[in-house]
């Protein structure tokens, strides 16, 4: 079933720590390497989320800019 995305901020209180970690992971990579890192990350996180309805909603929201 199609779901809506959570309105809860689940990254707190570590939002800034997470963002720093993410940027550090990309540090020094060429653009293609960075894109590949992102792809791996999305796939891993998708499995962590697991729920297909949530993943569908996330993809829909991400397509909007």
């Amino acid at each position, binding site marked *: 079933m199609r779901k809506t995305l959570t309105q809860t901020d689940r990254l*707190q209180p570590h939002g800034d720590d997470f963002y720093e970690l*993410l940027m550090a992971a990309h540090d020094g990579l060429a653009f293609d390497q960075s894109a590949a890192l992102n792809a791996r990350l999305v796939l891993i996180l998708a499995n962590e989320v697991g729920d297909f309805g949530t993943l569908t909603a996330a993809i829909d929201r991400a397509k909007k800019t």
Partner: protein
Amino acid sequence: MHYQNREYPYQTPPELKGENPGKYPVAIVGAGPIGMAMAIDLALHGIRSVILDDNNKVSVGSRAICWAKRTLEIFDRLGIGDRMLEKGVTWKVGRLFYGEKEVFNFDLLPDDAHKMPAFINLQQYYVEEYLVDRIADFPDLIDLRWLSKVTGEKIEDDGVTLHVQTAEGNYDLRAGYVLACDGCKSQIRQRMGLAFEGQIFEEHFLITDVEMPEPPFESETPERWFWFNPPFHAGQSALLHRQPDNIYRIDLQLGPDADPIEEAKSEHVIPRVKQIIGDREFKIDWVSVYSFTCAMLERFVHGRVIFVGDSAHVVSPFGARGGNGGIQDVDNLGWKLAAVLKGEAEPVLLDSYDEERRHGARENIKNSSRATNFMTPKSKMETIFRDSVLTLASDLPFARTLVNSGRLSVPCTLDGIGLQMPHLNKNGAAPGTACPDAPLPGGWLLNQLGGEFVLLTIGEKARQASLPGVTNLHFENNAAVSAHYGDDVIYLIRPDQHIAATLDAEADSETLERALAYAKGKPALETAS
């Protein structure tokens, strides 16, 4: 209205009148906000000091404007809080724009439980002027000497001799302790050969103060506007907020390749300002272009020379942690140095200033570096991430909190470091916390704490507690106080309004004595011996 800088008079010091004033307990180098606040804090403890400044004016032009709640509480203890509050602009609404679009806004509702608001905007020159005025209340304790430049120092085990240069001639001055409050380019630090390392940012920022009779906002409510990639300034960031006297601060990111001298010319500044505020009447009050570093000393205490404020640590302005961090240094050091000079504590207590405030400085540097990194992405991928966060922020709360246009200064907790005892009564707030304010009939809790140790007892069970020589403040059935402090708890509160110990309501006098000894440096003494 443009601020009129007063010129403060030079006066011939006793040394040049052939008098011998002897050794001063404390000499403070630099009459910036930090040096002056330091002298006032020491004077409130009865400690005499001399301040030497190479200038005869308060801060010229636009520097710090944003003062946080904790800083205002400290300034209130020092005696200028009410003046700052009265003159300052209390922030309310913040708006964040990305491109043409407003992504979100927030309303900083006043917290009725606290005397001080989250933030005010007030130009640094006013803060310094109020400090100069306040210093005049202590003619026997503070000797403020303008146009007196410190050109060298001889450091010994029991004090320091400073070489002072004036238009009338040079002289030497001896002091037990020297507080180097001589700013980010500290010559004392340089002469002592101390490393000052950290991250240098390549970006240039233009700041301008603009005077406008009519606010650019829709109502009279002061707002703070922050843009990422605004239509008037492609690819960069911009900030606009209001200060007293109808003056507005505009910060514009210029990118790493900007030519600072060229950019500061009014032929470049005026069109940019017009693009931001539209077609309305304005006057440029101040322009400067700066780049910045985040750096700190490896140690703040070097025997008889102690670094305080910008001389010890510098941050980027995002998050307004420079002056705010420095005032917390003052708060932390004042009572400790006074206790050492009065023989109430061992010099080792000063090491806790070093430990506690380096912890604070590290936290400030971490936060302001992160904000700067968010504003100035250094690769294409970083830019993509940043822009994606801004795009998602319009409807997803998690993305909103990732948007980083500066994390505003809050006091760091000292839990687990320095002089703090373990958290012995979980009914109460943790040791190391800066005391939250609470309304009392006819006043505020924080106005009753600070300056000296206080035994704060809450609840009927704690009523009997007392500690010889320490003032006792007791509350029962006071919901406002208990909301933050719990019930049936004994607290020992430090002179800098931080919780030193959180104890059981039944704690015996031996435990209370031990908590006090601890807060005055006993654990440090034990590890030292």
